[in-house]
């Protein structure tokens, strides 16, 4: 029987992993992910989750142990944040290029220096090119749901890729929200068992991770790119199935009140819900403004984004990370790149904020929309603006 519980989002992740009957958890604690790995340890210690819990000695080893577990066909899960994601950086590339499905929730956290344990997207933006499927979430239910989807997507034989589920550090990870914990029978119907096609097995010896001289490396990379791009269809199909079974719908790009909007605000992650409230207020005041949210970050939903912004005149991309020394925030750069070739394209302006856990209120988003519209109309002497910095 599905039950609606008031639960800290971090703990709901453990519940999802338990329903998914995860085999191996290899994780290292780091704020603000600690409650995720603590609850998982508790579930294992009490026998609620039958899994091997490896308390590794660093995040680099966490991802490495996950590779090993996935390579023998175990359903594998881990979690990290900020510096932890950076420490395992080189291993991330290996997980995806070796096609070892691992599911990882990242409690997005700002990167040092200065040290910040609070949320922003700088950790995930540094992992853009790692070859993982990456999904953003906006509230606790979405996190729970997408952890289940992540296993199904990543382990699908047409995909066989690791998947990151992103949730904002503290803003989501530490919030107590009402979450519908689905019943085991239904989850079992939705989520097939892990059946990795070529595991390490003495009965059928294979070699994983051979080295590639120049004559063959490009072929390996093309194969990887084609596979990652094609995985989008599996993601969409999985979300369709999820909707049919559980009634909650997820899409690569989601639009809120964009039907006739001349101005679009674009956000990712939990701030989207705050932004929605701002859109409502602006709409009440007569402004033709809507919100576009990117849910699927990798593979980038190019077609869906172009469709979603087709009739707008202005897009205000709100980034939660800087691309230091670059021409715009990471999301804005990708949006511009996506729209560059379009015959009809809106103006794209960039405002960066919410860094290091700084809140953006509903009024704040209203101001961001005002600022963005002004930037689009009058131009700006800066490539982008950082919102809310004390000058």
């Amino acid at each position, binding site marked *: 029987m599905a039950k609606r519980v008031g639960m800290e989002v971090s703990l709901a992740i453990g519940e999802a992993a338990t329903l998914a009957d995860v085999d191996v958890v290899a994780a290292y604690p780091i704020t603000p992910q600690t409650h995720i790995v603590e609850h998982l340890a508790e579930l294992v210690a009490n026998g609620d989750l039958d899994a091997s819990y490896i308390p590794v000695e660093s995040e680099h080893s966490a991802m490495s142990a996950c590779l090993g577990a996935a390579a023998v066909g175990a359903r594998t899960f881990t979690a990290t944040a900020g510096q932890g994601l950076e420490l395992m950086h080189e291993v991330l590339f290996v997980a995806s290029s070796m096609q070892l499905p691992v599911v990882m929730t990242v409690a997005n956290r700002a990167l040092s220096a200065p040290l910040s344990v609070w949320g922003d997207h700088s950790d995930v933006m540094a992992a853009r090119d790692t070859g993982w499927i990456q999904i953003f979430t906006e509230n606790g239910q979405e996190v729970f749901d997408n952890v289940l989807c992540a296993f199904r997507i990543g382990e699908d034989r047409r995909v066989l890729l690791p998947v990151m589920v992103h949730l904002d550090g503290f803003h989501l990870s530490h919030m107590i929200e009402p979450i519908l914990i689905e019943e085991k029978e239904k989850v079992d119907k939705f989520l097939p068992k892990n059946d990795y096609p070529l595991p390490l097995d003495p009965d059928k010896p294979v070699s*994983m991770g051979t080295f590639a001289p120049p004559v063959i490396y490009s072929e390996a990379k093309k194969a990887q790119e*084609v596979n990652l791009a094609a995985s989008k269809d599996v993601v969409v199909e999985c979300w369709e199935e999820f909707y049919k079974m559980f009634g909650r719908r997820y899409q690569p790009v989601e639009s809120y009140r964009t039907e006739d909007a001349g101005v679009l605000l674009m956000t990712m992650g939990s701030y989207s819900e705050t932004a929605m409230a701002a859109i409502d207020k602006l709409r009440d005041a007569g402004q033709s403004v809507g919100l576009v949210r990117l849910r699927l970050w990798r593979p980038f939903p190019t077609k869906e984004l172009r469709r979603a912004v087709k009739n707008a005149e202005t897009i205000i991309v709100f980034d939660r990370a800087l691309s230091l020394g670059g021409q715009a925030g990471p999301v804005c750069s990708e949006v511009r790149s996506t729209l560059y070739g379009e015959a009809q394209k809106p103006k794209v302006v960039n405002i960066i904020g919410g860094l290091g856990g700084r809140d953006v209120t509903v009024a704040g988003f209203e101001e961001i929309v005002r600022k963005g519209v002004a930037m689009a109309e009058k131009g700006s002497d800066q490539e982008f603006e950082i919102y809310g910095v004390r000058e």
Partner: protein
Amino acid sequence: MAAKKETDVTWKDLEIGSIVVEPGSAEQYATGGWRSQRPVYDNSKCNKCGLCFIYCPEGCIRPQEDGYYKPDLFYCKGCGICAEECPKDVITMVEEEE
């Protein structure tokens, strides 16, 4: 895949994650082309101790039906360890003529 030349392998030929599924497929590479000297056996001295089989880094000295040992020149790199270690001086290293 084992028979294909690496320059013939297309991106579609590669397995998932570039996994190599044929065990030992690299055995088609003739390391024998590396050597400048090769071992020559005089079995009349041999006591079939098997140490040459043990000490060959290539694993290419193989036991024969009659209990003697023979190096597989397809692989032999001519290191000379077998000749050096043979307790009965069965093996002589001979220069390869070019």
